[in-house]
Structure formats: structure tokens, C-alpha cells
């Protein structure tokens, strides 16, 4: 089982990388490959089971997009072929058409999904998130300068409370086959053991207990109860 973490020297914000550490602890048989910006991605060899990309700065979005652009066709083929991708925070935007700034300028992204993002650096959006992944309840946090617009992709989560891809819609993130991208940032997998179990199942380890699963479930159930309370404020 191979898990590739793309560009951790540039994509390291908000605790997202701990998701990979949690997978490593939960799936000790997994081989973790950390690919730097200047190296060809391991997924080009076709034997990577899970590709991860984490939150990053706006400058890093440009670097990462440039690094991945030569491999756009291969990425599309992997997505179509069912390779698992876990993309968190603003890493999602690397895979859409473009990011538009306040001044109208654009950063062209990989164009794999027909969505666009609008970036407002003076208007950081902070909220809690409660959603559904099938029957699984998802809890988490959003903290971002952007929202994504358009109907060109299915959502990963269906929003119950908080914002979807933008505050006006319910679909959150992007899902196509096993490509999973979400604006829910930080320790998504640690916060959501049932979702992590689903990913472990996709990776062929459905029965193995997760690392500190009992403690993670305690924390998850408490947060789920809090977030389900209609009196709980969701915006920071």
C-alpha cells in the first residue's frame, strides 16, 4: 500500500499533514512517499494507492499548479481509473479551472473540474462545518479566503450546517470516483473516524482498528453533538 504526499515542503498549513500521520499510525503497512516540488510524482508509476495534497499559501498554489500541470492528463486518467485522492483546504483549487482575485486577475489551475474560485484576501471566511458523506456524519472547520462556484462537479459532502462550496450551496468539495477534495481543513481524518474507516476500506484495510480509535470516537461524538445543536453558532 503506497500513500504519496505531494509537496509537503510547500503544502503544510493548518495541521492537514497530521491526516497522513494518522493514516500511517492506523495502517502500519502503508509506505509513505513524500514527493518534493522538484521531483516527478510517484503516481506517474501507476502504483500509488492514495495521493494527498494539503493546504498551502497562495504563492504555493502557483508553484504546485506549475509542478502538476505537465501531469494533468495522467492525473485525469488516475481519477477516472479510481485512484484515491485526498485533497484538503485550498488544495482543492489546484484541480479546478481558475482562481479569480479581487482585481479580476486569474490564476489558471489544472482545469480538471469545471468550477472557478473567487479569492477575497480581505475577507477570510471562518466557520464550523457539519455535513454528510453518505450516511456518515462529517464535522470540521473551514478557514479560507476563497469560495468555489459552478456546477461542474459532484460534491464530496452534503452540507447540513455551514457553507458548501460557497455559502449559497449544499454540495461541499468535489467527488469523482475516489477523488475527494474538501475545503474542510486540518485534521479531517482524526476528527472523523467513520470517514477515515471508509478510506481505510478503500485502501483494503476495512477491519483494522484506527489508531486511538476509542479516543477519536469520544472526541468525534462530542463534537457531533455540539455541532448538531441548533443553538450553536457556526460563524466565527
Amino acid at each position: 500500500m503506497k500513500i504519496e504526499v505531494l509537496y509537503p515542503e510547500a503544502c503544510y498549513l493548518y495541521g492537514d499533514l497530521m491526516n497522513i500521520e494518522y493514516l500511517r499510525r492506523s495502517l502500519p503497512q502503508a509506505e509513505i512517499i513524500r514527493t518534493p516540488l522538484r521531483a516527478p510524482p510517484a503516481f506517474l508509476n501507476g502504483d500509488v494507492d492514495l495521493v494527498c495534497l494539503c493546504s498551502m499559501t497562495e504563492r504555493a498554489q502557483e508553484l504546485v499548479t506549475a509542478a502538476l500541470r505537465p501531469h494533468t492528463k495522467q492525473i485525469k486518467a488516475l481519477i477516472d481509473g479510481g485512484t484515491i485522492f485526498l485533497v484538503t483546504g485550498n488544495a482543492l483549487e489546484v484541480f479546478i479551472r481558475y482562481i479569480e482575485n479581487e482585481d479580476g486577475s486569474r490564476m489558471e489551475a489544472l482545469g480538471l473540474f469545471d468550477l472557478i474560485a473567487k479569492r477575497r484576501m480581505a475577507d477570510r471566511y471562518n466557520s464550523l462545518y457539519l455535513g454528510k458523506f453518505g450516511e456518515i456524519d462529517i464535522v470540521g472547520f473551514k478557514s479560507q479566503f476563497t469560495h468555489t462556484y459552478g456546477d461542474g462537479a459532484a460534491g464530496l459532502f452534503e452540507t447540513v450546517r455551514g457553507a458548501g462550496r460557497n455559502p449559497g450551496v449544499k454540495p461541499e468539495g468535489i467527488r469523482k470516483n475516489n477523488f475527494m477534495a474538501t475545503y474542510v481543513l486540518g485534521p479531517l481524518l482524526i476528527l472523523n473516524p467513520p470517514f477515515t474507516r471508509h478510506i481505510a476500506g478503500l485502501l483494503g484495510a476495512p477491519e483494522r482498528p484506527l489508531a486511538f480509535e476509542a479516543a477519536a470516537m469520544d472526541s468525534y461524538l462530542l463534537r457531533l453533538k455540539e455541532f448538531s445543536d441548533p443553538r450553536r453558532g457556526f460563524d466565527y
Partner: protein
Amino acid sequence: MVRLRFILALWLSKCARLALRLVRRNATYFPGFLALRLCPDFLRYVGKPEKIIAVTGSNGKTTVSNLLCDVLAGKGYRVLGNRLGSNVAAGIATSLLAGSTVFGKTQYEMAVLEVDERSSKRIYPFVKPDYLIITNLFRDSIMRNAHPQYIAGFIEEAVPETTKLILNADDLISSAICPENPRAHFGLGPMKTDVETCVNLINDVQICPVCCGELVYDYRRYHHIGKAHCRGCGFASPQSEYFAREIDTDAGTMTVADKNGEMSYRLLSGSVFNIYNMVTVIAALRELGLSHAEIRQGLDTASIVETRYNARKAGGVTIIMQMSKDKNALAGSRAFDYISGLPGRKEIILMMNCAHDQQHWSENTAWLYDCDFEFLNRETITRIVATGPRAKDYCLRLLLAGVPEEKIRCAFHELDAPDLLEYAEGSSICLLYGTDVLALVYKVQAKLEKLAQEASVQ
């Protein structure tokens, strides 16, 4: 008309300040807030001292500002500061109106102003600093500050072209700000506690800012602070015009050298953060024209108020109070690193609880996974009590940091935490606290002291 509006704002805000002070309030924010509401251009028109030194950055700006004020005032300068007050636009306006006559003319010859990084745009266009000291830029709150490059952007777009920057050469984020501005750098030479490989989760400068190649650190203090170079393009950390070497924390001395000489200084604190603060102050004072001898004389009588750390005996136990800013992974990492390095057996209460957040939403706990809880996985730390509404999250994070389960306790009610500790003779109890609920912190502290005294009697 504008002048009239300014005078009206000045007088009313001066009256508001007087009234607040009569009822024993600090009045460091509201008068300036009022002035800016009545006259949005108030900062443009209010009288300013001839020389303005602004101090900004993630950590150390209060300490640096206070030391600068102390030394300069000791030299006989009439220095205006915002020591007691707010560092946002309203606070700066309050300081300036307090330091002006009824006609708005300043009564000071120099100002040392601590400025919040995010307030740069509202302040620097009107209060143009001759010198801007940037202590460092680190991560802070995810919600407010995002990442340090974002904060650097706030400063960069507001600094006047003529302002001379005094920058930390060991911080590749802040030292890169406004490359066209005149600048001087300060830095610290190698120390015995330095490392080459980053041991922290937060490491915000890993690639060369020029060619994006791998950065190699010749030495590293913590996180991205250190001296680095790029093997690919030759980029390197800037050279320090003011450079501290022979730093001996045991003897409490260091030597600071520049092109015109060098001087041995007594360290005001052994912590690396405060050594940086001292060198920052020395660099700024040298830029202002003071001699090393004058600076040393000034610093010899100065002290750093350790508001964030306090230790006192209760029975046979030492109760240590260590502030660790809420929702701030970097502050937590630094506090954990420091506490875990203290000698002897320690028990810890974690109380960085955003109680106010809990009243209207739920704390964003992503910062826990940027924070080095791994420092708490030491043999000398025998028990850790996680408290507050997020106690379960802390417990899980401690487990992931490798802390054995039998050492971890959970107390939703902070006042229950002292009951879960052992008060062994000669050990320390460390209360790591945020600033959100200080009243509750003091109650927990009092209970700790009471239980420690009782354990001692038994």
C-alpha cells in the same frame, strides 16, 4: 472645516480620556476610537514627534518597545509610547492625542509605538515611521492571521518608501519585506542549543524564496528561525550588521558587534526569544546613534517583565504559571519546549481553553495539530490533565504525541484538575494557560497552592 473637525475630535477624545482616567480606567483605546470616528483622518492631523520608531512582528514587540522606551527615557529623551495600551489604530491615536497639547501639537521629541501587524494599513500612511522594527513573523491564529506570508503582505503594502527597516536576519519571512527600502539586520550567531533539522511541526520556510529549491539550514533555532542557504541558486540569509556572538546563557553574557565596534552585554533573560529581543533593541539604538557604552548602561538597569512566566513555592511543590496564547500553535510549541526542559519531575494542567469561543461557537482545534505536543512526551512529565470543553481533543492529541495513556487525565471543569494531580515533594506543577479566562486561571492557581500546602503538612 477639516481642521475644525479635527479640533473637535481632539477635544472630545481628550475629555473622554480624562473622564475614563477619573474612574480609574486605563483609557488606552476608547479615546482614540472616538477620535477616529469623529475625524477619520485624525492620525493625519494630530501632532507627531519628530522621530518615530514603530515596532511590529509576531513575538517580542511589547518587550522591545518597552526596553527601547526605558533606555531612551533614561538618556533624557522625551519618549511617547503606547506601553499601557492598544497597538491598533485607536490605541496609536490615543497615545498621540494624550501626548499632544489642546491644539494638537506634540509634546514629545520621539515616539516608540508598538503596532499590530494587521493594523499597518491604517497607521503607517499617516504615522510614517522613520524606523520600523520587525521582530519576526510566525503563525498565529488560523482564523485571523492565516499564515505569516499573509501578514507580511499587510506590512509590505503599508510601509512608506523612506522608512528604514530593522530586520531579523534569522527570519527569512520578515527579512524579505520591502526589499527596496533602506534596511539593517540583526542576528544571533550559533548557539549550543541549535539544530540543523527542524524538530517542529511548524516550519514555514522550507524552500528557497528565489528558485524554490531545497533550503539548507546552517543552523536553526526553532521553526524557520536560523541561517539558511540554497544549494541551487546561492540565495542565503542576509548578513547581520548587528551580530550577537559568544552567547553564554550560563554566564548570562553575549557580545554584540557591528562595523564600529563591539560590546559585551549582560543578558536580561536566558530565553532565546529574549536574547533576540535584546539584540533587536541594541540594533535599533545603534541606528539611533547611541554608543554601545550608552546602550549597555541603559540595559544594565532595565529588566524584562516576565508576565508570561511565574514560579513560586507552595509547600514542597513549585507552582509554575506559564502563559500559552490560545489558538496559537507556535506559542504552545514554545511553551511546551520550555516547560519540558525544566529540571525535575513535573505535572501539567493544560488550560489554553477558548472559553469565550465556546459561548458562541466551538473552537477550531486544527491548531492542535500544528503544535508540538510531542515535547510533552518526556519521562520527567508524570501526568498531564487536559481541561475544559475541548479536553477530549487534548487527550487524543496527547495520545498521538506518544504520551502514555496512563499519564493523561481529563477534566471538563477546570477547577477539578488540581484534584487529579500528585503533589510530590520537590516536584513542579505547571499550569499552562491562555488569556481567555484569567479569573478562572487564578482560581485554579489558588486551589493548586492550597492542595500543595495541605500535601506538605501531611
